[in-house]
């Protein structure tokens, strides 16, 4: 007997995950992805709105109802094709986009209940395609004879390259590290974004014809003017926000105090978690503190656990409400056993007399009036100083603009904080033929915003190459 009349309400489908106790000891991915039947069930929840508000929440405006409808009908190939019209890195975005403040935040179902799991469905489509083993290669336009140099192989650089190669231009990516991918390979850990996925995206770019020149530090190995001399017609700068912020407090040079950039680069890019199979060492602290409360802090804390820490604490000077990390990341971290020490800020690190970190002196804070950022300003409570032991500290309080390239290119204008000034509608810098986008313009933001900037710049470069500056 068919039960047509009664409309059964399907709840938001959870994604299977590794058990917290198990995963806190390994570097494998935490969420395991939807199997096809669950993906189809989740897809069936979408109302196929005439005016899909979800789309406006997505910086690259993926046609969300269209791809979800295809999943619902079992047309996974069609679904991924639909996504790829707008997003070249769906396997990445499906995993790391802050969906709860973007697409899913705007889903109509979220008004009363739970939004459609758009990110998980996007991830499902991309993973399905990769598992099929054959990734379709779109038609390229006829060669234009124009050459473009892309500096930096993070999500913004990859997007610029992927878009322009399809328009028939000749694209070369210059990357300082030995492996392309930017923060996707050196920052975000394996357990959140498997490196094989980034490698697959890079392979796809190579198949499209994008050339990669790794080990090239633009500003050191070659300058931007020299790229023009070599015959490039346009240059895109997508070098990210690669400058670690320190706290400038006593003891910061003790052994065991890391910037998040160093800690994560050692672990991810250099695979120090596989030491001594891989040569690069990392201190496997037993008692680790992490300063900061964004994604970078969560990644550092969860990495520390996996490297064998018995205790990991995140020390943050505001309260839980102000934590900038994605809810899912904070949730995962706490599940795995990361502790939060809120409303406290460090005063100085304490050494053991041999130059090694053995503790940190902190001060309690309370929240006062809102500051420029709209968040309540933390204010120190007099006489509340306390000491706590730790053998490793990771400073994850933000990043700045790395001046290596910009110092060598004085005709590119920078803002007060050293970021490149780029026209909001085109990404053009003050230097003719040079564009910039991603974190080096906005400061550390998100993968999808970097990709959105890349898309805008690709259009602008294409216009320039066909119509003029």
């Amino acid at each position, binding site marked *: 007997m068919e039960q047509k009349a009664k409309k059964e309400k399907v709840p938001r489908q959870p994604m299977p995950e590794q058990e917290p106790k198990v995963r806190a000891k390994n570097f494998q991915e935490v969420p395991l992805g939807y199997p096809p039947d669950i993906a189809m069930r989740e897809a069936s929840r979408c109302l196929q709105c005439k005016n899909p508000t979800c789309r406006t929440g997505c910086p690259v405006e993926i046609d969300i109802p269209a791809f979800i409808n295809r999943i619902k009908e079992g047309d996974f190939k069609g679904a991924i094709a639909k996504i790829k019209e707008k997003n070249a890195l769906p396997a990445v975005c499906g995993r790391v986009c802050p969906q709860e403040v973007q697409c899913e935040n705007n889903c109509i179902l979220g008004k009363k209940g739970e939004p459609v799991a758009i990110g998980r469905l996007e991830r499902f489509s991309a993973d399905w395609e990769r598992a099929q083993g054959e990734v379709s290669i779109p038609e390229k336009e006829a060669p234009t004879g124009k050459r473009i140099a892309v500096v930096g192989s993070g999500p913004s650089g990859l997007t610029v390259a992927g878009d322009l190669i399809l328009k028939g231009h000749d694209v070369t990516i210059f990357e*300082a*590290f*030995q492996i392309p991918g930017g923060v996707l390979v050196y920052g975000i850990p394996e357990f959140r974004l498997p490196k094989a996925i980034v490698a697959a995206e890079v392979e796809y770019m190579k198949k499209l014809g994008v050339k990669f020149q*790794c*080990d*090239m*530090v633009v500003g*050191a*190995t*070659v300058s931007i003017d020299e790229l023009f001399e070599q015959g490039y017609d346009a240059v895109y700068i997508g070098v990210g926000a*690669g*400058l*670690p912020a*320190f706290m*400038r407090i006593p003891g*910061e*040079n003790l*052994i*065991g105090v*890391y*910037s998040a*950039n*160093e800690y994560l*680069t*050692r672990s991810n890019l*250099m*695979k120090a978690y596989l*030491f*001594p*199979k*891989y*040569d*690069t*060492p990392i*201190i496997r602290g037993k008692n680790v503190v992490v300063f900061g409360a964004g994604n970078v802090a969560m990644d550092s804390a969860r990495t520390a656990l996996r490297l064998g820490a018995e205790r990991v604490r995140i020390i943050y000077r505001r309260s839980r409400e102000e934590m900038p990390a994605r809810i899912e990341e904070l949730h995962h971290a706490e599940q795995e056993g990361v502790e939060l020490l809120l409303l406290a800020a460090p005063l100085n690190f304490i050494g053991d007399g*041999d*130059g090694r970190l053995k503790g940190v002196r902190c001060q309690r804070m309370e929240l006062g009036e809102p500051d420029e950022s709209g968040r309540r300003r933390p204010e120190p409570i007099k006489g509340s100083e306390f000491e706590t032991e730790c053998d490793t500290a990771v400073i994850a309080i933000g990043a700045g603009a*790395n*001046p*290596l390239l910009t110092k060598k290119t004085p005709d590119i204008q920078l803002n007060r904080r050293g970021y490149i000034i780029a026209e909001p509608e085109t990404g053009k810098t003050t230097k003719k033929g040079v564009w910039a986008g991603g974190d080096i313009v906005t400061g550390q933001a998100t993968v999808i915003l970097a990709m959105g900037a890349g898309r805008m710049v690709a259009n602008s470069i294409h216009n320039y190459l066909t119509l003029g500056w």
Partner: protein
Amino acid sequence: MYKILKKQELVPNIHLVKFLAPAIAKKAQPGQFVIITVDEKGERIPLTIADWDKTEGSITVVFMEVGTTTQRFALLNTGDSIDSLVGPLGIPAHIEKVGTVVCVGGCYGIAAIMPIARAMKEAGNKVISIIEARSKYLLFWEDELKSVSDQLIVTTGDGSYAPQGWIPDQLTQIFEGEEKVDLIFAIGCTFMMKLASETSKPFDIKTIVHLNSIMVDGTGMCGCCRVLVGGETKFACVDGPEFDGHQVDWDVLLSRQSGYQDLEIQSLQNWESRNWRRTK
């Protein structure tokens, strides 16, 4: 992949490797370094560019075997390749005519000081070079340094060749003599650079050292290489590697250099136990 055009063991445990690297050769300046990775599993380590040839498109490094990476590197031969080679990194040595310059080098620094001595000579300075080695059999590039110096002083720790003594002994002799020295450059092991700086300080002679803190990216991205100079934290890879030796906090540098000692030993033991059959 970066091809090794020439590999030679100069003296026991110190090797010369010449790479095909046209882009780096074109840009290299005295005092700059490269970062190499031997293979996919390797660590990134910095090495000073000891020589380069723009026409041939080659660069040369000279390195001492001290741990896993340098040992693995030492096992490669002419015709082999390494995974990654990036540079030239760091601020070039400041070359100008100042008068009389003393260039000192110990261990790998004997080679690393060469480009600076040559450039200072070409800039019109009187160049006195001092090189030290524990023993005669560890000395190399004597003739090369002679050819770019007005005077070359060699000193050996065991007195097996030339006078017995170390660089500070030779420096003191010069300072107490007739010659007025305007500037000193020192490259080599940290202790030597520290002692050279301490020797020149009472005489108030500016001493430039090349700091060799532990590095990862070499582009100012990680902060691993931080050193304390004149009370300020600097990144050796982008703010240096040249610094005023009288301002350097040597204790911080030496301490940070020892940060991975136990792991380095573990790494070396692990590697050796699996590779003891291999030979150079």
